[in-house]
């Protein structure tokens, strides 16, 4: 039972660490990483994509959170 509790706590920790309050953030980051990799493999400069994604996903997430939080 103790081992199961440890495993559950371990899994919960990583879910909280990665997903947090908004699951769309890690999903968007994952898609952006794949797109960055694809662009780079195609020989297209891709350094701008992650920073642009960070700005975009932060703005969208905050807008959604602000409209549901008072």
């Amino acid at each position, binding site marked *: 039972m103790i081992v199961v509790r440890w495993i559950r706590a371990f899994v919960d920790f990583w879910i*909280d660490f990665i997903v*947090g309050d908004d699951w769309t953030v890690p999903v968007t980051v994952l898609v952006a990483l794949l797109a960055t990799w694809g662009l780079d493999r195609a020989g297209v400069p891709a350094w701008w994509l992650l*920073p642009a994604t960070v700005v975009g996903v932060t703005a969208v997430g*905050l807008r959604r959170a602000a409209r549901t939080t008072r």
Partner: protein
Amino acid sequence: MNVTVTVTVFLAAAIEVIEMVAIVVAVGATRSWRAALAGAGGGLVVLAALVAAFGTALRGVPIQPIRLVVGALLLVFGLQWLRKGVLRVAAQGWGIGQGDEDVDDSDVPQGRFDWTGFVLSFKGVSLEGLEIAVIVVAVGGAAGAPGSAVIGATAAVIVLAVIAAGTYRYIARIPRRALQLFVGALLSAFGTFWAAEGLGVSWPGSDLSLLWLAPLYACTGLVLLHFVRGWQSSAAVTGTPDRATSPGGAG
């Protein structure tokens, strides 16, 4: 002693140590010094074991996959903090309220060890430390002066650790919600940089890209802070249901 090797490794290691110290101080000031220092110590122990076990084979450690994984994890965690920092400052303001017990520390476990702070600090120290170890082995080995390289790297770690120890008290005085916004921007910047490098992307200006990434994210947070206040006001006027109860939560 080969002075050229010592100075070269000192300067190269100093850049990595600055990044390492920035993460440890940021985690310590915003979460828990105990967890941050334990994570840093753990990272250094792992590095020492790696260096002792593998020696020159460290040059063959593939750094790119490590950068990708660590960078991606730091990025998603940093974005959570940036978001929470903006929402908390929007809700409670920049300053410490009268009788406010100084900081909002709802996201740090009370009376328990802060594993999140430990992992953040551990990853930052072990990744940057691995790069320092590779520099030491590569430069020291190539010049035939490993001892001089070790002295240069050790001096960089000691000098910058002393500087950090002298300044952390000032950082700790900043309200946590404000610090969370800026540390979130900092972690996101490191995460962006490492994750992209792990994918093989070349940054214009290499490591200097961190000098515009972190300010870009911090400025984004500050600009969005202005908008968030407006969105919250309009939501209040139009009577949007209050589904989320607080900008807090774990993490």
